[in-house]
């Protein structure tokens, strides 16, 4: 197609208006900066808490009795005692080792997936100790950095009265 040149238009430089775009971009940037929060990733521990009134029936022969973990509270809700089946333990690491010796890994022979742990805690005990106990019986970090699962069924014993 042929254009007739008049001589007046000499092909001037076309300039884009950058100002509105930069305004919007900076507003977006401000929005994201203002709403930005650094939060640690969170994870869940599933606990088995059936209804308060259990259904009547004959217990299964293959069902193992739960492993009882007792935690007592001292002053200010601090952990005063940690017991595994009436035996006093010194730390949560020992609890992990003992449970591992009892049930093994979930993936190994005679896996821990059928085992069950019952947590019996004083009313005033700080909740963070419950999570530490659940962590100890649930598994551990293997040498390759992967989580090795142990007990997956965890439940609470009936709660103690306030002040205990």
């Amino acid at each position: 197609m042929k254009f007739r040149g008049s001589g007046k238009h000499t092909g001037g430089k076309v300039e884009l208006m950058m100002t509105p775009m930069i305004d919007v971009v900076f507003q977006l940037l401000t929005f994201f900066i203002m709403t930005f929060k650094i939060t640690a990733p969170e994870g869940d521990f599933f606990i088995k808490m059936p209804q308060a009134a259990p259904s009547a029936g004959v217990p299964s022969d293959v069902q193992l009795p739960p492993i009882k973990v007792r935690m007592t509270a001292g002053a200010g809700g601090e952990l005063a005692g940690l017991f595994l089946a009436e035996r006093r333990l010194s730390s949560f690491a020992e609890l992990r080792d003992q449970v591992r010796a009892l049930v093994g890994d979930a993936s190994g022979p005679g896996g821990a997936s059928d085992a069950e742990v019952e947590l019996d805690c004083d009313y005033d005990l700080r909740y963070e100790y419950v999570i530490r106990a659940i962590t100890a019986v649930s598994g551990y970090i293997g040498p390759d950095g992967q989580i090795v699962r142990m007990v997956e069924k965890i439940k609470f014993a009936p709660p103690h009265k306030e002040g205990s």
Partner: protein
Amino acid sequence: MRYKRGRQIPDAEGDMTPMIDMTFQLIAFFMILINFSEGDQNQLIRLPASELAKPPDTAPAWPITLQMTARGTVFYGVDEFTLDNLRPVLDVEKELISRRGGDFRNTTIIIRADRYAKTGRVQELIRLCQSVGFEKFTLRAKQESP
């Protein structure tokens, strides 16, 4: 100082390209990191830490997040309740789930309790939810580096 008349000074134009590049990269960074699920995370709650706490692969179907403070009150959304006046709220939620075609027995109660909360209060909260009819519970912890 004297300037010669008639001499034209060229406009000084800054090169905007690097600044725009950097700004877009910043926007992309914040867009990727933005977390819209923070609505159920109350900053009053200091979660206990666990090295085994990993974010779940799939979100629960009908989650209800209850957040217990160190003094034993419960936040549901932005409202704070005591254990005594939480029950009507849970009853309403149960009814809503049923009306929306869900099964309240499949509802997962996510408990975000403060690390200094009393274990007995957390157990009372679980019992309250059980009495309403909920059966599935998860205890939430923040991820800790091993």
